[in-house]
């Protein structure tokens, strides 16, 4: 019996505290607020829309920068909308891509309507079914600690679903100007 669910900001903070030079692509909504809150960084690309595209964006970036670790951080609703991209990623198997899905089983930005993952859908299992062999779900602090260790060590495509408390922490909003975000990100990643 789980007594307390993971806090979303604690999860994001745990995964990003040792990110080094990793680039982060955020899904829209709460995932973007989380990353902006715990680790504002010129190597972050935030989303305010384009729901369903975060994993595919991460794949494009991972293929373009094979020597750079790329981390996609997104929510369960965003991941479900782009669920086919799990198969696309699995077919390419980029060793430098890690995907973190924050699963609160709700659509947080639109009034906390119940989402599919609370009604039986298992994103880690769907990812494994799509061919992402290293896809696991974590629920506890000890599972989080173990997952963070493996997240940053070695190489290999991996996906972690973190079951999190549906509570919404205060919004921390990064720039909503995607051109500014793009230019800063590219300047940082590519130089010049």
């Amino acid at each position, binding site marked *: 019996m789980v007594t307390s669910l993971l806090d979303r900001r604690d999860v994001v903070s745990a995964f990003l505290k040792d990110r080094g030079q990793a680039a982060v692509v955020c899904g829209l909504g709460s995932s973007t607020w989380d990353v902006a809150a715990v680790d504002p960084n010129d190597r972050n690309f935030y989303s305010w829309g384009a729901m*369903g595209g975060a994993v595919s964006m991460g794949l494009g970036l991972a293929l373009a920068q094979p020597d750079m670790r790329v981390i996609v951080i997104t929510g369960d609703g965003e991941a479900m909308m782009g669920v086919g991209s799990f198969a*696309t990623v699995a077919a390419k198997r980029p060793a430098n891509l890690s995907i973190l899905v924050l699963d609160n089983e709700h659509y947080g930005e639109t009034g906390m309507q119940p989402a599919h993952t609370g009604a039986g859908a298992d994103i880690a299992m769907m990812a494994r079914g799509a061919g992402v062999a290293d896809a696991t779900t974590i629920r506890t602090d000890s599972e989080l600690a173990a997952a963070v260790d493996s997240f940053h060590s070695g190489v290999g495509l991996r996906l972690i679903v973190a079951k999190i408390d549906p509570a919404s922490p205060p919004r921390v909003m990064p720039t909503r100007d995607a051109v500014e975000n793009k230019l800063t990100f590219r300047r940082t990643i590519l130089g010049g």
Partner: protein
Amino acid sequence: MADDDRDWRDQIFTALKDADISLVGYVPDAGHAKLIEASIADNDIDDVALTTEEEGVALATGAWLGGKKSVLLMQSSGVGNCINMLSLRETARIPMVIIVTMRGEYAEFNPWQIPMGSKTQAAFELCGFKVERVDRAEDAGPTVAAALSFAYHSDTGVAVLLSQKLIGAKTW
């Protein structure tokens, strides 16, 4: 290119190579088959089969964030799938070239292809794309080269529509 009498598909691939395209995302279509085969065979090109066309819009965006130039290949029936994701291209001003094989026009045999085929150009224009249509084989390579130059010099989206008359109507 007046003395270039190769197949128009080969001319398109040459245009991609000349523009340093190193990623090709696609949902297969018979009209793109040769380009897809050439992309798979080229060690300097990442070929990415997509489960649905909008993935390609996000893929191309991620690639550009990482400094890689790409094109997307799809059939006209898949263009409608891209519309929401194209907001990403427009908002972030990502250079993007989408090469579309047209269905639902000249000598079409499948009525289910007509609704999207007849709205493809308008859909792109609604999404802020420039649209170039190719009806003659000798225009294919130069048009793709021009689209790549335009898109990557101005951070815009350009669609190249390869007409069904050019490709040859599908028959069974």
